[in-house]
């Protein structure tokens, strides 16, 4: 075997392994916490903001960086909102004496 690995193949490997990890971790989530699960996964998928930051980053402002800036704002709503609302909900799931 010669040559370098195509990044797409590498991505696919990561993808398949991550789906397996997700599958096993999610089945362990207690049904009582399914709503917080949805809000926290929402916040986590907003890590797409990383792509948005790259898009908004170029020194020269053009169509792409404006799109990126808008995407940063949208994803930031979710990052902050998702984690905070999850925390708010989880605060309620406390054992009371």
């Amino acid at each position: 075997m010669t040559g370098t690995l195509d990044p797409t193949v590498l991505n696919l490997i990561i993808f398949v392994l991550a789906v397996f990890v997700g599958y096993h971790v999610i089945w362990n989530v207690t049904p009582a916490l399914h709503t917080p699960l949805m809000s926290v996964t929402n916040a986590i998928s907003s890590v797409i903001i990383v792509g948005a930051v790259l898009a908004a980053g170029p020194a020269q402002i053009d169509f792409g960086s404006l799109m990126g800036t808008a995407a940063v704002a949208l994803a930031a709503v979710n990052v902050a909102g998702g984690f905070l609302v999850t925390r708010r909900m989880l605060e309620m799931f406390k054992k009371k004496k």
Partner: protein
Amino acid sequence: MSANLVALWYLVASVCFILALKGLSSPETARRGNAFGIAGMAIALLVTCAVVAKAGRLDLVLLAMLAGGLIGALAANKVQMTQMPETVAAMHSLVGLAAVLIAFAVVNNPVSFGLQAQIPTGNKLELFIGTFVGAITFSGSIIAFGKLAGLGKSFRLFSSAPVVFPGQHWLNLGLALVMVGFGVAFFLSPDKAWTPFIVMTAIAFALGVLIIIPIGGADMPVVISMLNSYSGWAAAGIGFSLNNSMLIVAGSLVGSSGAILSYIMCKAMNRSFISVILGGFGAAEGSAAQGGADKTVRSGAADDAAFLMSNAESVIIVPGYGLAVARAQHAVKEMAEKLREKGVNVRYAIHPVAGRMPGHMNVLLAEAEVPYDQVFEMEDINGEFGTTDVVLVLGANDVVNPLAYEKGSAIYGMPVLDAHKARTVLVNKRSMASGYAGLDNPLFYLDKTMMVFGDAKKVVEEIVKALH
């Protein structure tokens, strides 16, 4: 920072995200899990900003982040727990739209993402997938949001009843094929192919609307989980096209999470995912329930219900969507406390599809400060109904319908809470209208059943008064 160092930091962030989900396996570890999630996100953002700061400008980024973050934080603090389903739907739509915008930026200037000016074909394919999934997530979530927020009166597409028309599924299929066709055109064209890309995105937006409108209100737990899943796949797709492993990992975690939740919800309704997605269920509402007209129900007042429960040894409360609509959770908790003071063993039984999203009832009860160890999932408590004195059904219907045990009924095989096995059954409903499945419920006509008509909150408050 070298590319390797960046990738390693992204790996740390990915592990944090996995730990965030792992924490949710129990309420004790869940808060720590959320802290991991926040840490992972902070790492991801700091590292990326450091990369951008070296080569480009950060002012726009920081401004947008501040504005978005502020809006998100305010919304997170203000939102009511009864509004969680539509809030989550709104959040899905934002992820979807962000994915589409990023894809446009990638097509416009691949170099700023570290790709070659001529986007490699592999990344192009993934870009196409990430974009249309993101677009469908966006418009589909907007419709889901409208349905969940009850905006059907002001805009027909938001109606919680299914919106169906002849040839609907063929239209959707045709549009999907055309969309894929334009995607292939984008994939095959040598340079920036804006036209097929834009047409494809536009069709995907339309498809998102068309796919969700025929799905009725009570199937929303499946829809919202499905859109959750889509938002994850969209993020993974963007991760693929940017060769960003962290995005792929985070997206896959979210994608599989949503897929598993959809599966759990479908199983709890004994319906196939396909039949839920094709929609139209419950459109014939009312026609099937005619048989109940000549049967008689026994109805009683809140005082009678209070008397029955205070003399019981054990009570199981079955909450449903009606409880959420009436915002009765605090009143219910007060009632349960009073009963407990009298020595009654009060527990709650939660059906997986009670409410409008997975875990909806658990969050409402938690908000009312009901200790979670009094709240039981269906499989844990279903065996206990036979030895229970009183069951109080609050605004639930299909999930306690014993017809599920009768061959040939529309809901045959659906797992239900065995409320009919208790010694006495109290049912609070606003009227005798049938449930979502359009079925009559034999539980209401049993000799041991007493109906207490009225708004859940008012009825429970009256019971509390009668309990002293």
